[in-house]
């Protein structure tokens, strides 16, 4: 290819190729959800969506994800603060441990929780006789969500802590602020962007969590069945429309979260 003055042929070619690659990977599968889901008319779509079990599944997903997110934001902040402000023996080991769940298959994570808290699990065996049964409840789903998504929130918040100049906090201290005032007025505002994106990432990931949820929840329709589990169950029963309706909602929801993430990043990081 000769180089034409002022025109680099590699540029449009590589952009075109990238889009072409993304077609079968992302664009077409997503498009087919919408095409298929609405092919029988919006009425069918709506009635599939308003099934009590479907609504329950969506609500449960949102609620469990919400609580997992709340926990992740607070504990993620705390863990990031400790691990980036204090240097102690075993610090790196702790950081690796916190990040480990990202590398663990979610089914393994769910299985591990089951082995600990389940009726015959290491701890569960001792607690079940006293009427404490964590597994197969909404609490178990939250726990699994936290287990799987905590590294996400931590991974977003900690780097911001690391790069934040110590002199801001030192300045605040010399001006006369207590640790709490410094955290509240100085540290936290600088973390706003990281907290929002950490929360949204956690939430998006938790809403879609399947592998660990199916093991710890028991997948009981109308009781512990989350939206992804509902899709899977309806698909197995051959009720493609029912599965598809929820799939559309989840897909739209993830679009929404990512647009917020994308737009809010710029908005929140204004210095």
């Amino acid at each position: 290819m000769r180089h034409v003055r002022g025109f680099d042929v590699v540029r449009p070619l590589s952009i075109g190729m990238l889009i072409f690659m993304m077609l079968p990977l992302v664009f077409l599968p997503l498009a087919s959800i919408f095409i298929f889901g609405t092919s029988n008319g919006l009425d069918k779509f709506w009635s599939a969506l308003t099934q009590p079990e479907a609504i329950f599944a969506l609500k449960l997903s949102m609620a469990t994800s919400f609580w997992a997110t709340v926990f992740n934001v607070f504990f993620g902040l705390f863990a990031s603060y400790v691990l980036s402000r204090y240097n102690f023996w075993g610090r790196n080991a702790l950081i690796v441990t916190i990040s480990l769940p990202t590398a663990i298959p979610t089914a393994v994570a769910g299985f591990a929780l089951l082995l600990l808290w389940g009726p015959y699990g290491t701890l569960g065996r001792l607690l079940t006789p006293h009427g404490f049964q964590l597994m197969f409840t909404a609490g178990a789903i939250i726990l699994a969500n936290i287990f799987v998504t905590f590294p996400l929130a931590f991974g977003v918040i900690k780097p911001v802590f690391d790069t934040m100049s110590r002199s801001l906090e030192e300045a605040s201290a010399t001006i006369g602020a207590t640790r709490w005032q410094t955290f509240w007025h100085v540290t936290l505002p600088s973390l706003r962007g990281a907290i929002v994106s950490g929360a949204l990432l956690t939430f998006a990931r938790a809403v879609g969590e399947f592998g660990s949820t199916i093991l710890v929840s028991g997948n009981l329709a109308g009781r512990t069945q989350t939206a992804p589990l509902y899709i899977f169950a309806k698909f197995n029963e051959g009720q493609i429309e029912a599965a598809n309706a929820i799939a559309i909602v989840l897909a739209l929801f993830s679009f929404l979260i990512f647009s917020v993430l994308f737009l809010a990043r710029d908005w929140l990081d204004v210095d």
Partner: protein
Amino acid sequence: MVKAKETLIPRVVEPVSNTPASPAAASVIGISKRFGKASVLENISFDVAEGEVLVLLGASGSGKTTILRIIAGLEMPYTGKVVLHGREVTELPARERGVGVIFQSYALFPKMTVEKNIGYGLRIRKRKRKEIRETVNELLQLVQLEEHRKKYPSQLSGGQQQRVAIARTLAYKPEVLLFDEPFGALDTQTRVHLRREIRTLLKKVNVPSIFITHDQEEALELGDRVAVLNVGHIEQIGTPFEIYNRPATEYVATFLGAANVLDAVVRNGFLEVGSVQIPATVDKEKFKPGDCVKIIFRPEDVSLNRGDFLQKGLSRLGNALIEEINFVGAYERVRLRMDVSGADECKTDETPFYLTTQTPERQSTKSIIATRPKPEASATRLHVGERVTLALTSFTVLPSKGAS
């Protein structure tokens, strides 16, 4: 430690550097600091008077930042005390000391506007809204940033951010202002401009201030007094005039601008540099005959003369050959080679700290740097290869290291 006391200074009285004019507003008494086994500060003591500017001048690693952090309460001293307006604060955390620190990076809070930044100290002290607003307005006026009050720090220039940082500390009436290399991040022009501005500002607010810097020009211009630090101890404290013109140690002499250093022996009222004899003017009693000393003089203290006739008041140094003449803008720099043949029993073993000579001379000749102001340079033109008579308008004599 080399002490300032044993100086042999021509035509001057004893320096009065260690006591500020008015009582101390901030004192550091016998501070030392270790990091692990490494000692970074040894027995640092100084006072700063109300409204006075003290500059801690030192190379990187001299411990100047550590002193500042100890005063601010961001670092604990190993021994010693910090006293602010008569109150010992050594054990107090930073927030209870009421010091104002202007960090090198300014450390303005990025998510607060200029006025929020300035009012921060009062807000956390739970002052009334009205009082905060009034103070902020006053300070905005003082640092001339009224039209920028709603801006965020990132929208300001370096110099403006600096002024916000100062206003932010002045808001809560600090016991002492501490400046940590405040001009380090700025270009030369802004730096010169800003330090004049800040000097004027500080004279208005009457708060004791401590600056740290490695820039000697900055130190001389900003400081009412300057403390020269070298690897964790103070070499000399004095007015800019004193430390420049009457350096107490060779380190001070060479750190503050260029200096020529000659080894000499004291002998019957003369200082002998090889075969050259210089009449020892004052303070003869400070040195015994046979003592090894160093003669220190600045390039601008060297007078170059054709022929043997010298003006009154000059001390003859000897003959020298002009090796190089450089035009350096405001003045002319001349490198000369002086004859100093003859034995020199005072040659110290260690390689001396020369700033101005390229190579430490082995013997018999000595490289000297002289500068001449423009009028003189154009009145009597000198040429490379010419021989001239060297004389000194003033010089300092210090004991040689190792000599008692």
